[in-house]
């Protein structure tokens, strides 16, 4: 019962409890630290540098990522695209050698980790966003196309979905509202 005369800890237990839970929540369930149990980190199978390709090699985004004539998006190029140039190693960097050894020679498709992977039941039209809205890639993909070293891939162990760089429904709808683009169920869901 309440009327014990031992020394009362006052607010201390509350504060301790608060801070403890607060930190646990942020460390283990916040994306930024991405430590288990909920989140995991992965690295791209190949140390790919957009910077090298765009600046040194002087390629443009459209060389690899483009709109098919039927309006679908090419997405990430398949291995044969890489092989066009990387049949022979370009330079002696460790990454390059690795890449040739592991993928080009055995002709094995690269299991890229896709930062902006959406659930399979979501429809997204690159065509509309590029040709009608005239968005630049970075509007959605942020700096992904410019970095020299692929950023770490943070994903949720439960739903297996990527967490950093991913666009969620709220973002889509906000933007669609802003530009009063259609915002109906079937606009994105299928």
């Amino acid at each position: 019962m309440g009327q014990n005369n031992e020394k009362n800890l006052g607010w201390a237990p509350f504060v301790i409890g608060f801070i403890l839970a607060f930190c646990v929540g942020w460390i283990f369930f916040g994306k930024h630290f991405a430590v288990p149990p909920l989140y995991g980190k992965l690295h791209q199978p190949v140390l790919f540098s957009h910077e090298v390709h765009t600046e040194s090699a002087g390629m443009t985004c459209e060389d690899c990522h483009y709109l098919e004539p039927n309006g679908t998006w090419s997405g990430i190029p398949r291995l044969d695209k890489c092989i066009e140039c990387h049949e022979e190693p370009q330079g002696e960097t460790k990454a390059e050698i690795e890449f040739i050894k592991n993928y080009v020679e055995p002709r094995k498709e690269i299991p890229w980790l896709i930062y902006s992977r959406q659930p399979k039941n979501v429809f997204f039209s690159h065509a509309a966003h590029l040709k009608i809205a005239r968005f630049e890639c970075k509007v959605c993909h942020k700096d992904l196309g410019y970095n020299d070293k692929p950023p770490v891939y943070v994903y949720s162990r439960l739903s297996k979905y990527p967490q950093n760089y991913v666009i969620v429904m709220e973002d889509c709808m906000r933007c669609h509202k802003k530009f009063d683009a259609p915002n109906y169920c079937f606009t994105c869901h299928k």
Partner: protein
Amino acid sequence: MHVESSHAEKYVMVIDIDKCTGCGACVIACSQENNIPVRTDETDKYRSINWLVIYRITNGEPPPKTKVAYIPRPCMHCDHAICVHVCPAQATDKDRIGVVSQIYPRCFGCRYCMAACPYHARVFGWWDPVFPKGTERGLNPDVSTRMRGVVEKCSFCHHRYQKARDKAIAEGRVILKDGEYITACAEACPTKAIYFGNIKDPNSKVAKLVKSPFAFRLLEKFGTEPSVYYISRQEWVRRQADYYLEEIHKKAHE
């Protein structure tokens, strides 16, 4: 910046009942296109998932005067879609191209829309979706499979619109040509009894067809304003499409 394409689109379906032989190709094509599950026993027609149903009606005359007609019934995509009004979770809405669109993962299966829809166009997933072993390889990636416990219905093959539009955009257009976007059932129909197109485009086939004196819609008196029109030159067929109070009906005809 305003990215909404300026042109008006409202897609409607016109079904010529006199041309429909009830062969059922549309139903199969629909099922194949829209990843419709199939159970080993589907003889309970009130619990069988179909986006497109064919009703068989007869003129009630004894042979040899008997006449049979078939009424293929997709979702009516009503302009006054009661299902949209009543859905408590905004899981369904009226699209800008006239399609009553829907988010399956949003729906929590209260079935209020089913109670509301007089066309029985909405069906419920009573069981987990199953596909005959092996045939999941034949599923269409443009349409998501629906989990148990949600309401689903015909979407006018909206994914085909998305594809057609993407193609148009790639070719630098925003307006689709007539026939560029048609539903799977219209595509399959051997007698081409199903027409589909943009009614706002005055040159489209459907725009002309709906003006036909024989064009009508199901249960118009209920005031749901369906987007699916039917054509039949047979009086008895038209009579069965809606309720008539004899005397009122007679007056209308005199």
